[in-house]
């Protein structure tokens, strides 16, 4: 674009725009920075007035997050060996003893298993269905796609009632398999919709050439279509993963122990006499940080994916 272009904004208008956008960015990131900072505060520092911006960082929140503790009697404390590591030191300094590891690790692992399990299944089934919708004449195709999308208008709680009853009947309540199937069922409509768009963009001529070369349909699908759709598949996978990772309503209503994921668990972290905010913040940080890093690293595919549906239809 030449320097004389009439559509290029002037340097001044660019400057003003940049300042305003930076201002908004700082304000909007403040709560997130605060979560991360609170995770490294001690209990008293986290609830001081005015809010502490500069503080002595501490791992107390993280220690509390991963352990269950009780108050120790003076005799117990006196009998205790000198602290061997920083965990013992933090706990002993407050006159407490660790009774057992907390449930956070298991809940986090559940999030990982259910998140990746349902993403894999959504993508596997979704890619097959999207290919069929894109390339073959499937009866009622248009109605089906519309129907798939309209199921998303149902409030999750409304679906949760019969699912709750169904899972109870089938013995799927509070199981990993149940949650994986459920999240796949919720995700697959969007996955098929997005993937069909990506596969539509691959010219049919490629496959036709492969068929002429003697490939079967399945071979052509595997060796020609899949590699071409890899980017689309990857960005759809990220969406499915983020949905399953963040989902709360179903997890809250349908899981209570074995298969409970982190989102319903983190708000239930309490300390002695109230919310243990540093521990909550530590849990939130560990849970949110992977998504933040993911978003920044994969921004090109993600941002395109969000607007994809809007731009296409």
């Amino acid at each position: 674009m030449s320097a004389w272009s009439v559509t290029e904004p002037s340097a001044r208008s660019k400057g003003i725009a940049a300042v305003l956008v930076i201002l908004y960015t700082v304000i909007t990131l403040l709560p997130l920075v605060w979560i991360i900072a609170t995770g490294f505060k001690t209990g008293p520092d986290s609830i001081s007035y005015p809010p502490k911006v500069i503080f002595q960082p501490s791992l107390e929140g993280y220690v509390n997050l991963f352990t269950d503790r009780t108050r120790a009697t003076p005799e117990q404390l006196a009998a205790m060996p000198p602290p061997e590591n920083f965990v013992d030191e933090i706990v002993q300094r407050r006159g407490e003893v660790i009774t057992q590891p907390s449930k956070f690790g298991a809940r986090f692992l559940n999030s990982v298993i259910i998140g990746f399990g349902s993403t894999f299944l959504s993508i596997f089934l979704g890619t097959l269905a999207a290919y069929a919708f894109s390339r073959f004449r499937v009866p009622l195709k248009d109605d089906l796609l519309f129907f798939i999308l309209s199921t998303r208008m149902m409030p999750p709680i409304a679906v949760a009632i019969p699912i709750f009853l169904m899972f109870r009947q089938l013995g799927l309540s509070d199981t990993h398999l149940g949650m994986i199937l459920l999240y796949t069922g919720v995700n697959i409509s969007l996955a098929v919709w997005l993937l069909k768009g990506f596969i539509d963009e691959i010219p049919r001529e490629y496959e036709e050439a492969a068929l002429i070369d003697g490939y079967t349909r399945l071979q052509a699908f595997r060796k020609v279509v899949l590699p071409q759709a890899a980017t689309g598949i990857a960005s759809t996978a990220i969406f499915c993963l983020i949905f399953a990772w963040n989902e709360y309503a179903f997890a809250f209503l349908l899981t209570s122990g074995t298969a409970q994921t982190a989102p319903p668990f983190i708000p239930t972290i309490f300390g002695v006499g109230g919310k243990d905010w540093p521990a909550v913040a530590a849990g939130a940080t560990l849970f949110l940080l992977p998504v933040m890093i993911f978003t920044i690293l994969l921004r090109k595919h993600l941002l395109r994916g969000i607007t994809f549906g809007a731009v296409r239809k």
Partner: protein
Amino acid sequence: MADTPIDRLARATPSSLARRVRGLSDRAIAWVFVTPTILLLLAINIFPLIWTVRLSFTNFAANKPNAEVKWVGLRNYTRILTDPDIWQTMQATAHFLFWTLLFQVVIGFSLAWLINRKFRGNDLLTTLIVLPMMLSPAVVGNFWTFLYEPQIGLFNYAVEFFTGIPASSFSMLGSVTLAPWSIVIADTWMWTPFVMLICLAGLRSIPDYIYEAAEVDRASKWRQFWTMTVPMVLPFLMLAVLFRGIENFKMFDLVVQLTGGGPGSTTLLTSIELKREAFEKWRTGYSSAYAIILFVTVFGLASIYVKALNKVKER
């Protein structure tokens, strides 16, 4: 008809019958590929929906599975529609919907418009702005209750810092008048980036030559904005409003963590009310009818809206 080399090759190769012998027919592949997805959708989406409809005509209670289930006809529906508390819930939902949509559209569009000045580093800033909407609403909502704490909360402190109103003199989540706004603020913080991204896609879809032509015609910037930019972004903006509207109508996770519907029932959105009826009072039949009413409402409103949207697109 053009006779391309591909056409000639196609005729020279064995017919589809020969291919069928070596592998599955296209028809068979289509069915094999689509069936698992259809089955899953039937199991997770359609079957539950039918079951909900059936339950909505009964007095079934999920915590008493052995009790006798009676067919009660339309009684659940008439009870819901004549209950004054329902209208209070609808009012809370309408307040939440109206203000979140308004703020998100105004702020989201303005941000997109500013970012579209294409200053250096706009990519990175866009990514950072998008962060809140990628995160778990329940976990973030839970933390917002900490920000809203009177005295020690960052939000209250910021209000004191800028306006001089003492931080401990008001409680965003505890006050009947402020609580509805506390959920609007948190939701706006979280979802404005979504509206922004869609507006940005709209702005970027406007070709430069249109503005060049307008410059040649000596149209003022102001006029260009209202007669070209706004009408061309409008379909995108309307779509963003549709998505956000549907999502916020069924809003549960963020608000249940922030206020749980309280104080009183000032922030009792429809989904939270539904959860209370279904999973705390265990009135399964009644709440199924409620769910159906909500679904029909969203579906009806969305259909009318989509018609309007298509009219705007055609212009």
